[in-house]
């Protein structure tokens, strides 16, 4: 059974989808039980993988391979290395907690869970695929559920309903109407943006397929024996970089992301910010770094420049937002800049930090979105100025929000701290300016998150919201406690985690740096 553990992780949510199709909507508890199981199984299995990955041996492990089409050179090929394990774990945990977060979805709950499970499973699928075809397959598959989830179960941004008149909503020019704040607009923008990015990456993948001389999509084979002509490496790396970075999202391709976050229901925002955005970084590493190490070295300084805009621009915009979800949305795009900085530094410390930070950010931002969603459920507003003083009504949420904020800006004891520190330490040597700016970005994070905390939970309370309830004992508290506990646990005991990640990162960096010196700064933790 343990030979097929990746299949179990990948197909448990799909099995949940199939089961849900046969359960009537009139049995809400059964629907949710199935969804919980579909989230719990991958979570437990991911922990198993984390602790049974042989980091001394390194490389891809838990591999499974089945020929899917000989004619096209496609095989269903699964495997994980140190870079994908944290992300698989994060996806599973966020799915598991997301099921609880969306416990109170009433409208067509069964369909909601079906799309949520497809979204999570597709995300996991990208992380475990070692075949370019399936990597793209799952990548594209993860985008479409977002459209339906946003459109049907999402929420309009404040002010939309006053503005919206039906004529405008139906017009063809709607997509270009940037003044709209509707969820349909957000969903369409997100889908088209990500599909366009995916198509750019697809073209690169097809060129790799056609020019490698192997006529296969098998990534491991391409890494070992691919003969892609040298003059194509640069352009292919850029296609892959910008194709996948649109989901990451790197400045200036980020504009779909905060809008999408704001429109999405809480659990979807969690998955979106937590793991969907990391598909971008992961795919760049998995495809771009491994296949074109020299082009990586040549072009990643570009990312180091762009990431500064992400960090500062995202942070500043987040500071001036009035909508809780916009704050968190922009904070996420800002924090993704750190990951790019870590990736661009191309040394073991910062890369390890980047991967760890992706995991840590998933937990922290998951908590933030869950709390924002809960507050919205209780008060039906996300407008920070009109909220306030909610800590007296919901002490638990206020408390856990402090943990989430602490995790988000990287307070020691949380896993975010370790990730952030490793990124900064590693990037100091190659990019001192960017590192200083990134440190300033942490201050910015602190500023906007504290501002939001004050605005929502402290200060005078609008009596209008006096009816707000605190989190119910199990359903609402469990997911947040799981996320907080995971963040603290790996903050205190990161050794196994870092060993696993380094097993994936070290050979990659060695390949990219070639015979040059391996920049080993500081010691490992």
């Amino acid at each position, binding site marked *: 059974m343990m030979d097929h553990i990746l299949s179990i992780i990948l197909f448990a949510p799909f099995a949940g989808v199939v089961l849900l199709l046969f359960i009537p909507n009139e049995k809400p508890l059964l629907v949710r039980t199935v969804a919980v199981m579909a989230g719990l199984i991958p979570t437990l299995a991911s922990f198993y993988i984390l602790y049974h990955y042989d980091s001394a041996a390194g490389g891809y492990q838990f591999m499974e391979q089945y020929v899917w089409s000989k004619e096209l050179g496609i095989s269903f090929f699964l495997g994980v290395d140190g870079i994908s394990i944290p992300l698989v774990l994060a996806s599973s945990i966020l799915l598991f907690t997301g099921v609880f977060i969306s416990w109170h979805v009433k409208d067509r709950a069964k369909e909601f869970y079906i799309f949520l499970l497809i979204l999570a499973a597709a995300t996991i699928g990208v992380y475990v695929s070692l075949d370019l075809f399936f990597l793209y397959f799952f990548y594209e598959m993860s985008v*479409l559920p977002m459209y339906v989830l946003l459109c*049907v179960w999402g929420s309009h941004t404040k002010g939309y309903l006053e503005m919206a008149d039906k004529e405008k909503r139906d017009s063809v020019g709607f997509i270009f109407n940037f003044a709209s704040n509707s969820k349909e607009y957000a969903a369409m923008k997100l889908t088209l943006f990500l599909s366009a990015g995916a*198509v750019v990456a697809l073209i690169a993948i*097809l060129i790799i397929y*056609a020019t490698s001389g192997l006529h296969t999509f098998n990534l491991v084979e391409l890494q070992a024996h691919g003969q892609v002509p040298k003059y194509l490496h640069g352009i292919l790396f850029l296609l892959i970089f910008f194709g996948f970075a649109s989901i990451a999202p790197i400045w200036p391709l980020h504009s779909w992301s905060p809008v999408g976050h704001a429109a999405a229901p809480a659990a979807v925002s969690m998955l979106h910010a937590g793991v969907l955005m990391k598909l971008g970084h992961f795919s760049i590493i998995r495809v771009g770094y491994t296949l074109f190490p020299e082009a990586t070295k040549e072009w990643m300084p570009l990312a180091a420049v762009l990431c500064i805009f992400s960090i500062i621009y995202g942070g500043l915009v987040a500071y001036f937002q009035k909508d809780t979800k916009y704050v968190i949305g922009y904070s996420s795009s800002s924090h993704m800049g750190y990951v790019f900085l870590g990736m661009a530094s191309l040394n073991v410390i910062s890369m390890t930090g980047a991967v760890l930070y992706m995991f840590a950010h998933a937990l922290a931002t998951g908590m933030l979105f869950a709390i924002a969603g809960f507050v919205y459920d209780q008060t039906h507003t996300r407008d920070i100025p009109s909220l306030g003083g909610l800590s007296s009504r919901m002490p638990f949420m206020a408390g856990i929000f402090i943990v989430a904020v602490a995790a988000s800006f990287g307070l020691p004891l949380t896993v975010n701290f370790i990730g952030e520190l490793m990124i900064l330490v590693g990037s100091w040597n190659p990019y001192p300016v960017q590192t200083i700016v990134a440190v300033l970005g942490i201050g910015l994070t602190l500023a906007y998150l504290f501002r939001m905390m004050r605005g929502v939970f402290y200060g005078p309370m609008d009596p209008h919201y006096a009816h707000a309830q605190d989190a119910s004992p199990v359903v609402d508290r469990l997911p947040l406690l799981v996320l907080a506990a995971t963040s603290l646990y790996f903050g205190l005991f990161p050794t196994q985690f870092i060993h696993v990640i380094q097993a994936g990162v070290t050979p990659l960096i060695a390949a990219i740096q070639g015979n040059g010196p391996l920049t080993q700064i500081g010691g490992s933790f």
Partner: protein
Amino acid sequence: MPFTFTMTPVDVELLMPEILMTGLLSLILCLDFLFPRIGKTTLAWLSIAGMGGIFLLLAGYFIDGRHGTLFHEMYVIDPMAIFFKAFILGTTILVFLASIDYLKKVPVFRGEYYFLGLLAALGMMLMVSANDLLSLFITLEFSTFSFYILVAYLRDDPKSNEAGLKFFILGVFAAGLLAFGISLIYGETGSIIFTDFARMHAHLTPGMVIGFLLIFVALGFKIGAVPFHAWVPDIYQGAPTPVTAFLSIAPKAATFAILLRIFTATLGDIRGDWVWLIVAISAVSMTYGNIVAISQKNIKRLLAYSGIAQIGNVLIGLAAASKMGDGAILFYLMTYLFANLGAFTVVIIFSNLTNSDDLEDYNGLSRRSPLLAGALLIFFLSLAGVPPLAGFIGKLYVFVAAMNEGLLALVVIGGINIVISMYYYLIVIKRVYIYMPKDNAPIPVSFPMRLVLITTVGGVLLLGIYPKAFIEISAAAAELFSRML
């Protein structure tokens, strides 16, 4: 050339599907005339059963790998032809199933409908075997004539009459071009047999160029590629919806059989001379179809423009002109069959109740019938090319085939078109899932319709998730086709 008509038992066996088909349609016609009290639905089920039998016979032929030529090489049976015959029969079966409910609302000539449908199917079955320009002309007209009548079938509906007339005039015009092209080619080469051209390795003379171009225009008209697409939206909109569904798939597939014979088999040696033509037509078809589809307000017109774009996608495979490209075309047509026919089935069911094809009336469909809404979602996402549905594999297959022949630009245009097409498919999905319905009446789905929906949804999912067997079938058909030249 003295023409002697001799047929050996082997020849009869090779022709057996068509002979049986002729028997079947005569039977249906006679039953309808002689026993008017037989329910028309019974006739439909009878034809479906008959075609099912012939389908199985063809499947057997395919597995046995039967092949041969008849009538001095004018008529050829090879795996490719058998594949297309089965494809056309499958389409006809599904269309007949989808027609049963629709025809209950047509007051007269309901029996003839099935007869004409079978006649069109027989014409196309003969057409995919045509190995010379004369039998091409005859079989093409044979199948198209039935369609002229079918398109104008709703004689009290001016739109249907208008569509029939337009289709007829343009169709006859295309036939004229075809005949002119054939005469030019015969004048230049003295031959009309496809395989002869390949053997002659003749260099192109101006007369031949004009001849082949005229033939291509006529065939381009049949598949509705830009710039020969002008008839498509009006006729799709005016024709009875089951006929539209039929028209959108079967004749196009049959024409692709001919295009494959002409381009990859006959003119394969001089691919460099014509590839730009196909590339241009393909790129323009995709882009034009997708962009114009965005502003459509009628679902049949939307599907018409989406169909133009889909044909552009199939043409990518033709431009590749390789074994893999041929296989990709066959596979793509299968994915197109399931997704497009499924979408039209939803339209038929919906308009049976509401008498409307306006997109606006699809608002809130998911609250009226979750089954129809879910099916439409799957069909549209497949047409858009979203994994894990059939359309995605189809697109990838043609892209890979084109990449292998170095057609990067075409693949890039195809990729951009995926994004454009996603927009208008998603607009419809948005209406279906998000907007509130004006009328809350649930939409009943009858048994035959349910059968079609299950088949098409199953096909879309199967071809998307486990396409291995189907890729092998299309690759095998293409492989043997190229080897038998």
